[in-house]
């Protein structure tokens, strides 16, 4: 390379899966051939008209896309600042953005001829979305989920079982999403010949961060078109929660070239980043290597991954997709954090004011958008990715309220 492009965050990743210094493919040798095969398959199919048509048809007829862009007028008026629009990924089949990616990867799996699907899950939304596509394709499905998450997301666990998936409880390490991912990797390395691993976020070894992003970009493409139709222009800011970061990348990526659009990724501040009990690697972490990619991590001075905390299981992860790390370093996106109590307040507020029950993950984005809106004039537009619905979190919120609904 003779010169550095002006916007190095465009046209990523490179051929080796690198987003600047992040990304890559850091796995044990047994998985390298499978990843090379997946990369070759995806390179071929991602430009194949029939594959694209099949994906678009599934998104329309099975997922119910396009998802609406909804002007939350009452809430915006109440806040008194910018107009807030909600990208309603909560209205997708299975109730979150996760299904966009599992539909895409299931189509890839079908082309590999493999008969078994595995996935990791945190809040259970990706597990449900994976079990759903596996049921539809008649493939065996096993989901790995941390023992602690199985407790706090019992509803999704039962949904997965109804869909015919086997849910494996992971009791190693911190018993949450990162350990579920370790265990899924261990299963994959053992059963690599007949198993397709559907990773749920824009992390993991190349080509996962790229292909998951590409499948999720339907969110941003639709939002851009819908915003132009409804308001006659582009939004001024985008806000999305970031755990691994797939809903955020899906919204952000189609707007990367539009310099006037500010991007805000909202990490889980947990009990507050100053307490150390949080899941905000982009806000206070350091670069390192975990789960097949180089990215910002929550780690100690010896390179050990440290436990995270968030009220939302889907954000309770010590790493983040490598493209976010690069967008941060390039200054293209801003990464901020919202604490548990602020997210819970936003959860209640949106439910009362707009009659929409958001997922606790998405509530982090809503809480930040509310703060941001107040600093902007009424002619400005913010799009928030309402990445999932909150039904799965009712038990968690009831418990915090001291109410038993079992």
């Amino acid at each position, binding site marked *: 390379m003779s010169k550095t492009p002006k916007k190095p965050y465009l046209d990523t990743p490179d051929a*080796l899966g690198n987003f600047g210094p992040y990304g*890559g*493919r*850091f*796995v*044990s*040798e*047994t*998985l*390298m*051939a*499978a990843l*090379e095969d997946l990369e070759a398959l995806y390179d071929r199919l991602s430009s194949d008209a029939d594959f694209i048509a099949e994906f678009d048809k599934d998104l329309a007829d099975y997922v119910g896309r396009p998802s609406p862009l909804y002007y939350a007028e009452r809430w915006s008026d109440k806040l008194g600042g910018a107009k807030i629009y909600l990208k309603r990924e909560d209205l997708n089949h299975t109730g979150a953005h996760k299904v966009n990616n599992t539909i895409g990867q299931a189509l890839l799996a079908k082309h590999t001829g493999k008969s078994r699907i595995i996935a990791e899950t945190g809040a259970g939304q990706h597990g449900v979305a994976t079990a759903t596509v596996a049921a539809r394709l008649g493939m065996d499905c096993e989901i790995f989920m941390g023992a602690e998450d199985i407790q706090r997301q019992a509803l999704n666990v039962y949904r997965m079982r109804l869909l015919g998936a086997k849910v494996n409880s992971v009791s*190693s*390490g911190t018993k949450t999403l*990162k*350990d579920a991912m*370790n265990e899924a*990797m*261990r299963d994959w*390395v*053992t*059963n*690599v*010949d007949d198993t397709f691993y559907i990773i749920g976020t824009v992390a993991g070894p190349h080509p996962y961060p790229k292909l998951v992003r590409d499948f999720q970009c339907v969110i941003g493409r639709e939002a851009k078109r819908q915003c132009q139709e409804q308001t006659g222009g582009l939004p001024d800011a985008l806000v999305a929660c970031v755990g691994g970061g797939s809903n955020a990348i899906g919204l952000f990526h189609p707007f990367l070239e539009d310099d006037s659009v500010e991007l805000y990724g909202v990490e889980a501040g947990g009990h507050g980043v100053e307490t150390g009990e949080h899941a905000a690697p982009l806000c206070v972490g*350091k*670069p*390192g*290597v*975990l*789960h*097949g990619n*180089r990215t910002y*991590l929550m*780690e100690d*001075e*010896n*390179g*050990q*991954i*440290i436990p995270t905390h968030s009220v939302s299981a889907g954000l309770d992860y010590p790493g983040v997709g490598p493209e976010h790390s690069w967008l941060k370093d390039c200054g293209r996106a801003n990464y901020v954090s919202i604490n548990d109590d602020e997210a819970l307040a936003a959860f209640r507020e949106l439910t009362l004011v707009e009659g929409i029950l958001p997922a606790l993950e998405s509530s982090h984005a809503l809480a930040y958008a509310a703060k941001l809106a107040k600093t902007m004039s009424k002619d400005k537009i913010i799009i928030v990715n309402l990445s999932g619905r909150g039904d799965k979190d009712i038990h968690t919120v009831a418990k915090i309220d001291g109410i038993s609904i079992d």
Partner: protein
Amino acid sequence: MSRLKTCFGVLASQNRTALIPFLTAGDPHPNQTVDIMHTLVEGGADIIELGIPFSDPMADGPVIQLADERALAHNTSLTDALGMVKEFRKTNTDTPVVLMGYLNPVEVYGYKRFAVDAADVGVDAILTVDLPPEASEEMVRELSDQGLDSIFLIAPTTTDARIKKIVAAGSGYLYYVSVKGVTGSASLDVSAVEARLETIRNSTDLPIAVGFGIKDPVSAKAVGSIADGVVVGSALVNIIAQNQDDKTALLTQVGDFTQSLSDAISA
């Protein structure tokens, strides 16, 4: 000449296979590791693989995961592991020591600083499980500058094209992973391993050690008859786990087991 080269040279001249036990640094307690290493040598170990504990050992089965947890309960760090090698070298200057682990602790330590410090305490080589040759250029260079070898894995799934890349990047010896799976998983198929070793030997003169699925004298003998080295990890770590509360019994059991493996592959 490096310790590894000398070691494999001597073994070849005696028509013997290297016995390469694995243990995790700091398991069950950091103050026991050096004693265990000496016991392994007394039992017939030719090379020692010393694991650097990591919070997220993705390529390891439950036995070594638990060993890492025991070591991390005492905050065993990469720095501590280097200290153990330094201590070991006070009385053993011959047995090669290979550090084995995951990339992140080394990233945080810094490649250059790590290479300098590792060479300084008498480490001979590094095997980083999640660093494939494609991404290893800087690490291999730093290690090589300090006279340290870089050991890479070859798996049953490795393509011929990848074997060429791996043997070009690797030095010291190659580590053939005998089964698809994590450490401590199913038994291996010796004839399938033999066929693979033949393919690999067409591309390299480096010695080839075989690991994963070798758990007793019988499997050690079978693999020893076709490989240049036999790595035994989970079976040994299991003995350490079972005797974690009794230091004396631990050393006796580890010594006896190592001797039984050594006798089997020499027979």
